[in-house]
C-alpha cells in the first residue's frame, strides 16, 4: 500500500554555516492533521462571523423565528 502523500510546506533552515536555505518537503502526518484542524477552524470561524453579527442584531421575534427554523432543520 503506497504511503500517503501530504502536501508540501516551504520554510527556511540554517545550514552548518548558519546560512538559511530553502527547505521544501511534505508535511509529516502530525503536521498535516494539525494544519487541517487549524485551517478548517479558521475558515469556519470567519464564515460564522457575519452570521453571528446578524443574529446579535435580531429582534426577539426574529430570534424566535430563527430558532424555530433551526429546530425544524435539526428534526429532519
Amino acid at each position: 500500500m503506497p504511503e500517503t502523500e501530504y502536501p508540501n510546506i516551504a520554510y527556511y533552515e540554517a545550514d552548518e554555516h548558519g546560512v538559511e536555505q530553502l527547505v521544501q518537503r511534505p508535511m509529516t502526518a502530525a503536521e498535516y492533521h494539525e494544519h487541517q484542524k487549524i485551517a478548517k477552524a479558521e475558515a469556519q470561524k470567519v464564515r460564522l462571523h457575519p452570521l453571528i453579527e446578524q443574529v446579535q442584531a435580531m429582534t426577539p421575534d426574529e430570534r424566535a423565528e430563527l430558532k424555530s427554523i433551526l429546530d425544524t432543520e435539526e428534526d429532519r
Partner: protein
Amino acid sequence: MSNPLPSDLALTVIQDGAEILSSDHRNNYAAIQNDVNQLIAALSGGTAGQFLQAYDSSDIGWVSGVSVKLWDSVEAGITLPVASITTPTLSQSFKHLRVVFQAANTATASEYVYMRVNGDSSATTYFGVHLAGLIGGTATYADTGNSGMLVGQSLPSSDLGATVQEFIIPDYAAAHRHSIVGHSFDLENTSSGAMAYVAFGQAYVQATAISTLTFFLAGGYSFAAPTRITVYGLA
C-alpha cells in the same frame, strides 16, 4: 549572499622578473596600493541594508533611504502547490515592511489567506476587522480568536488566476505590538460579476520584533500557481 570587503591591500612581493624590481615599477605598484587602499577605506563603514550613493563625481558614501526587495517566493524557487510558505528571517534594518502578493489555490472556491507572525499560532494574539465592498452593498466582519490573521483571498487556479493584496507593517523591527493595514481585491465570478474589495486592519499583540511571516489557506488547501509573495523593506 554577502561578500566580505578587504580591509587593506599590501603589495610586498613582486615575483615576475627582474624588470619589475626597477624603481619605476616599484613606484607604480606603490601608487596602485595607495589608490586601492583609499577605495577600500571609502567603501568601509556601511551597515546592513545601506546603499552606495555618489555625492559628486569623486565622493561616495553609504546611505539608507531606498526600498529593497527582501524576498520573493517565485525567485526563491518555491515549487507549487504548497500548503504553507514561510519567509526566511527578515533583515531588521528597515523601518517598515510592505508585502505584496497574489494568491491562487487548489480548491474549487475562494479561500481565505492567513498569515502568522514569527510562527506564532496562538489564537489570542491576532485581532482584526475587515470592511468588504461588494456589488450591492458592504459587509464588515471581525477576525478574532484565530491562530493567524486574515490578510486576503485566494481563488481556484483553474478559475480566474489570482487575487491581489498588499499590506504595510510599520516599525516591524521594534519590540512592541504591531498594527497592520492592507487591502485586497478578487473577482470571483465573471458571469455573476461577484467581486470584492476589502480593506482591513490587523494587530499582532505580542511585544516582539517581526522576523518571519508564514502564509497558509483556510480550509486546508494549498497555494497553486500563479501565487507570488514579495516582501519589501522600506527605509
